């Protein structure tokens, strides 16, 4: 039975939801849609009931438990067959370092020499860490490292992309190239993820998100880390949260911890999981979020490539487009 509305969810969306395969923003979006669409909510309930019955029906039953005769039969067959044939690495079972007392010392010395040669012969191998800005909370603030498979950052379309690691300059807009699905940006033990084509600047206090989405997992080290937008700012007090900039407003989703939202007309602290929207007129609107179903993932998600205007419903639903 498929939904009759063209922009509603499809079967794989529900199945991914119950299989805990949706990313955090996708899960939030789906749960928000279920509150608004009775048709999809009914489909979701049907899947929930089905999965429960499948689990109850297909789990091992008491009759599957081994009888003593089963265990004895296996052990008897094994003992009759003798010990397992030695594999190619079976000699390692008899290997003992006690026979080679000098080996650990020699190994440590060899490792030390290798490290010395490595850092002597390959200058600049250590990634440069900029000294922390006195106002900064993140140490180091402007130091970003991308995984090898990730994208380059383009400060300006006319310039060549930057290498995948190194310091970013403050107050210069950066944009992730179109071809990349996701980007992971690390600042020490903190982590920011940007959606495709997100634009942002870095400064002493955090990140200024110009467009697109970011998801932050921040450990406080002194002063709070702030994500600034044109409609207001989100100050993180040790937490995981998402910020999405759209023309209609800025959607802020709190996953864990505490954040403070500030606009030109209001200030509010969010301490429970939920959503708030910063509107262009400076107001803050709150959305209640239901607790996630058991078994859903709680780790920081990886954002899939999406256009910035997808959340407010004015553009195509990215979940259905994903399939």
């Amino acid at each position, binding site marked *: 039975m498929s939904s009759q509305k063209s922009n509603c969810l499809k079967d794989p969306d529900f*199945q991914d939801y119950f299989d805990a395969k949706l990313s955090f923003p996708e899960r939030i979006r789906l749960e928000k849609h279920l509150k608004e669409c009775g048709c999809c909510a009914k489909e979701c309930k049907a899947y929930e009931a089905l999965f429960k019955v*499948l689990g109850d*029906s*297909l*789990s091992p039953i008491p009759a599957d*438990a081994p009888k003593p005769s089963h*265990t004895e039969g*296996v052990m008897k067959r094994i003992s009759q067959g003798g010990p*397992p044939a030695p594999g190619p690495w079976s000699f390692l079972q008899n290997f003992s370092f006690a026979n080679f007392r000098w080996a650990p010392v020699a190994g440590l010395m060899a490792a030390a020499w290798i490290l010395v040669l490595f850092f002597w012969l390959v200058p600049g191998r250590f990634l440069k860490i900029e000294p922390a800005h006195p106002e900064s909370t993140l140490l180091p603030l402007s130091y970003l490292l991308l995984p090898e498979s990730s994208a380059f950052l383009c400060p300006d379309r006319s310039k060549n992309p930057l290498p995948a690691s190194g310091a970013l300059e403050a107050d210069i807009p950066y944009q992730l190239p179109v071809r990349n699905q996701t980007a992971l940006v690390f600042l020490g033990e903190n982590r920011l993820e940007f959606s495709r084509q997100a634009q942002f600047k870095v400064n002493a206090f955090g990140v200024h998100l110009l467009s697109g989405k970011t998801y932050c997992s921040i450990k406080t080290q002194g002063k709070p880390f702030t994500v600034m937008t044109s409609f207001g700012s989100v100050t993180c007090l040790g937490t995981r949260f998402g910020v999405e900039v759209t023309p209609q407003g800025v959607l802020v989703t709190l996953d864990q911890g505490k954040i403070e939202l500030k606009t030109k007309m209001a200030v509010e602290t969010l301490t429970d999981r939920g959503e708030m929207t910063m509107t262009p007129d400076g107001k803050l609107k709150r959305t209640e979020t239901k607790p996630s179903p058991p078994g859903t993932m709680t780790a920081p998600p990886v954002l899939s490539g999406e256009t910035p205007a997808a959340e407010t419903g004015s553009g195509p639903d990215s979940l259905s487009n994903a399939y």
Partner: protein
Amino acid sequence: MIVERYWPKVRSLIRRTLSNRETVEDLCQETFIKAFEKIDQFDTTRNFCPWLLKIGVNLVGEHFRRSGNKLQLVSWEETTDISILAGPGERVSDRMLIDEYLEKLPVFLRILFVLKHGLMLSYEEMAQVLDEPVGSIKGNLNRARACLKSHFAEVTTLEKADQGMKTK
């Protein structure tokens, strides 16, 4: 200890593929014996259960080959129309519905249901057990579940009828 711990999982998988009880017991025993013989090939960085279940599935495959059949991934589109279930006015239990549906599925698809919902394996572990790409497994399982869901929603089972009576 390994036999006591994993026998229920191996047996619940194999009994869904074979109807003969003696053959099920024999293949369960054979699975553990083969696991013991090949224990030096086990990668200790991975989970033991999928590796053990893979041995069981291979033994089931050998059993089918000996009887002239072949255990292989059948794509959902090749599966014959699954029309089931209760006739007009007949009420069945949820579990009977599931059992009847699974009986009509090809063995490989049946194994997917057991691995996912009965033994709670991830898609990656299922791919390890079945030596098939995660995408194929997921796509076929999703389509089979969507079909089952549509039948499930249409049929009034005993459980749903009981709930309806309680709310009145």
